[in-house]
């Protein structure tokens, strides 16, 4: 079990830069998720680590071995593809045994290991079936078994659950996670589904346009997004343009078109690159975006009272509502053209057209760099 | 497979086509400008005489006209007969479709000579149809079904019908099956639903199929020979005759080029017509 170290990885396709000077460290035994929208470069990064693409620049190390130029068959990886890529002309047994046969394992040992791994993924008894005879979930587990039985140094998964239906996907998330922890294998998991990444990853690398915008554990990514793109991609976020005009203790004071707001100071991060750059830019550029999540906004009836106390307040009108069971999704217009998404308690219901007051706790609001350039 | 030079994989096929297909045709074109030889098939002196003789020979024009006419008639009948076949083919289930495809394609795979023999046995003066007709007293003198343009037409339509069907069914398969029910739910009868919805959408296949069949029909050789005797001379027969019997290679080459040119002209006209028709339908 080893560490994956990626330095300065760059990959171009024609004039398109798919991966741009990427640095990544995956710790021993951890599950790192590469998260981002399609086209962000996460799959290309994975495939370069696997060896199916040759990097234009950069180095990749598995532990002490430099694998940058090795072909995939010499990197000792286990890979699970989005469509499973099970060999249709071989049985389940044949598929799972394939990697061991490539390593010239004696057949007795092959039999033992395949049987044990199949039992581990609850596919025992199905060895002589063909992939087309298996359900989607079974094919998924067969693909996992095939990748794990060879005891690879790293496990690479490329959106492995994308082809399953929603309910099965949810179940399989936990399953994959527990399997990975049981085996303790260093894993990179590519996905565009942020809920999935939050559930299974030890750390998430959020990628856009070939670069990592933020790297950290799920709760940090959620509560302290460092760029507006990350904030927008993870969960729902409302943005308000503003300028920093001063400090109040630990809070920043910003001037906006809607009035003066107070919010949290620059977010604290654990290990993302560019921490100092972030802190620096807070002073360099006064233009910021204030970010606040829908669940952190309180709605009360009536008109705005004078801005007393620490809370920021805004008057608004409810423009739309949708009842979602455990909460109500409101769209509240607080200024011409500026509509905020608010999650409200279903018991205190407002109707369309109601005048409400939205209040925001500064501790639940933070700032990110303004929209023109948002890269750490 | 070869990592460093994958083009080696395709090199033999490309070499084959370039050396033994492109070059010979280029050579043919050059040949059409040479002079017919007396003791040899050709004399490598450049001349335009071959084209002059082809363009001024009214007999050759008549042959060409007849060739094009047969091509057009073949295409027309192939379309009329092939459309129902294609329509049916895309609507049947998987198993039946397999069987029907076998039926459709197997004539192609039996060889044109044997098929022609079958038609001869059917259409000849002492063939099966005439025997039946005489037996039933319908036409005591028998029907002239062979060694004329009718026989040639039947044989040619028969050979190229599968090509039309395959081309049409390719396009018909892409038409969503619920379009006709949708049209009918809006008040259209079955026939109107077909003409206003299905047929226009199938036009690309009609277009391609007609083009394919026309080009093939115009250049067919065996059918006119076997089912037309030498009473139905078409340009391909003329070309071969000029080359092999008369040993006039430049003349034959010029005739072949003229046939190509005439076909291309027809194709260009057809493309123009179809584009106009497509635009008319879209507008």
């Amino acid at each position, binding site marked *: 079990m080893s560490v994956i170290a990626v330095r300065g990885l760059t990959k171009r396709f024609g004039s398109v830069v798919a991966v741009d000077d990427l640095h990544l460290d995956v710790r021993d035994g951890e599950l790192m998720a590469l998260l981002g929208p399609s086209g962000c470069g996460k799959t290309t990064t994975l495939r370069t680590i696997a060896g199916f693409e040759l990097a234009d620049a950069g180095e990749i190390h598995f532990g002490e071995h430099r694998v940058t130029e090795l072909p995939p068959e010499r990197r000792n990886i286990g890979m699970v593809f989005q469509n499973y890529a099970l060999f249709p002309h071989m049985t389940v047994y044949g598929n799972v045994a*394939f990697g061991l046969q490539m390593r010239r394992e004696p057949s007795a040992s092959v039999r033992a290991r395949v049987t044990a791994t199949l039992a581990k993924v609850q596919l025992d008894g199905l060895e002589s079936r063909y992939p087309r005879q298996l359900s989607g979930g079974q094919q998924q587990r067969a693909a996992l078994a095939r*990748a794990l039985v060879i005891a690879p140094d790293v496990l690479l998964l490329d959106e492995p659950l994308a082809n399953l239906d929603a309910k099965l996907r949810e179940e399989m998330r936990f399953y994959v996670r527990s399997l990975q922890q049981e085996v303790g294998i260093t894993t990179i998991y590519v996905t565009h589904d942020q809920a999935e990444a939050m559930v299974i990853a030890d750390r998430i690398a959020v990628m856009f346009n070939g670069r990592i915008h933020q790297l950290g554990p799920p709760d940090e990514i959620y509560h302290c997004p460092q760029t507006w793109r990350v904030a927008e991609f993870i969960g729902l976020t409302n943005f308000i343009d503003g300028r920093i005009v001063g400090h109040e203790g630990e809070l920043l004071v910003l001037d906006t078109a809607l009035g003066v707001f107070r919010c949290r100071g620059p977010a604290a991060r654990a290990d993302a690159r560019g921490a100092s750059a972030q802190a620096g830019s807070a002073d360099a550029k006064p233009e910021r975006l204030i970010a606040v999540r829908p669940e952190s906004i309180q709605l009360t009836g009536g008109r705005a009272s004078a801005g007393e106390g620490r809370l920021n307040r805004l008057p608004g009108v409810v423009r739309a509502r949708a009842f979602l069971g455990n909460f109500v999704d409101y769209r509240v217009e607080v200024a011409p053209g500026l509509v905020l998404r608010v999650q409200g308690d279903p018991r205190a219901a407002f109707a369309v057209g109601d005048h409400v007051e939205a209040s925001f706790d500064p501790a639940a609001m933070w700032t990110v760099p303004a929209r023109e350039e948002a890269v750490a | 497979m070869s990592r460093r030079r994958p*083009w080696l994989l395709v090199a033999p*096929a490309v070499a084959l*086509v370039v050396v033994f297909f492109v070059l*010979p045709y280029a050579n043919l074109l050059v040949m059409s400008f040479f002079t017919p030889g007396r003791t040899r098939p050709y004399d490598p002196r450049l001349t335009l005489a071959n084209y002059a003789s082809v363009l001024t020979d009214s007999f050759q024009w008549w042959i060409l006209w007849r060739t094009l006419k047969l091509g057009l008639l073949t295409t027309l009948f192939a379309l009329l007969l092939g459309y129902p076949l294609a329509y049916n083919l895309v609507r049947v289930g998987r198993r039946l479709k397999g069987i029907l*495809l076998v039926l459709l394609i197997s004539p192609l795979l039996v060889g044109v000579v044997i098929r022609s023999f079958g038609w001869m046995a*059917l259409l000849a003066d002492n063939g099966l149809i005439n025997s039946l007709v005489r037996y039933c007293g319908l036409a005591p003198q028998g029907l002239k079904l062979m060694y004329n343009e009718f026989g040639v037409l039947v044989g040619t339509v028969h050979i190229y019908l599968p090509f039309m069907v*395959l081309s049409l069914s390719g396009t018909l398969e892409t038409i969503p099956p619920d379009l006709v029910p949708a049209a009918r739910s809006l008040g259209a009868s079955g026939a109107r639903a077909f003409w206003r919805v299905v047929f226009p959408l199938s036009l690309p296949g009609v277009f391609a199929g007609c083009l394919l069949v026309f080009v093939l029909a115009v250049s067919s050789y065996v059918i006119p020979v076997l089912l037309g005797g030498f009473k139905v001379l078409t340009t391909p027969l003329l070309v071969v005759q000029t080359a092999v019997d008369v040993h006039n290679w430049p003349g034959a080459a010029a005739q072949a080029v003229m046939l190509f040119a005439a076909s291309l002209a027809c194709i260009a006209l057809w493309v123009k017509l179809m584009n106009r028709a497509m635009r008319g339908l879209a507008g």
Partner: protein
Amino acid sequence: MSVSRTAFLTVIVLLYAFLIAPIVIVVIASLNAGRFLVFPPDGLSFQWYVNFARSGPFVRSFFFSLRLAALTTAIATVIGTTAALYVVRHARRNDLLRMLLVAPLQLPGIMTALALLIFYYAIGLGGTSYLGLLVGHVLVCTPYVFLTVSAVLYNFDHSLEEAARSLGAGRVTTFRRVTLPIIKSGIVSGAVLAFITSFDQFPISLLLSGVGTTTLPIQIFDYLRFSFDPTVAAVGTINILITLGVVILTERLGGLESLTWGSRH
């Protein structure tokens, strides 16, 4: 069933009857006691098959065609398959290359034959050599292999090869154990098509055959031009049986669908 539907189906049945009529007639004629097919029928006889077996020229040309077709198939299958591998993997969008490789199918066979005849004289090969005939056959048969193997390769899931390599298989092993078994059906159906095309090939053989290199179709043609000999029917029936058997084999291997791909290219 409605009237119009019955009428439609009747038309369909008649059309299929039209399509297979000549083949059926050939088989019947081969068993006919008389020379011509008459109604009422003359009776059953195997005389024409006996005639065929006794006819030197027919038997010789039959086996000649068989051997030529086998050789043609072997060559066409290899170069057609490798060409398809290249085009689908490395030149998918190169329309010109694809058109070039399929071109021998697009131009009339008789013209290609003529062009080849004249060309062979120009390069000193002459018009009756076995090599020239073989090259001509390979030329028109290879595109079929190319088309059927391409069709299978287009649908081939590239990630299967990547999966094999991620498990430790090198390029050659991957091709041998994963790619080849899966594209086998395309190769086989292409080979079958190539064999039939060569065996039944007419225009090229017509102009490039010599005295000792006569193929079966040419032999039949020579007979038919001057007389109506039902021995031809016997030969034809054997030909039909061989071809139909081979077509059904291809259908079983799922190769017939790939033929319809070819007509769309």
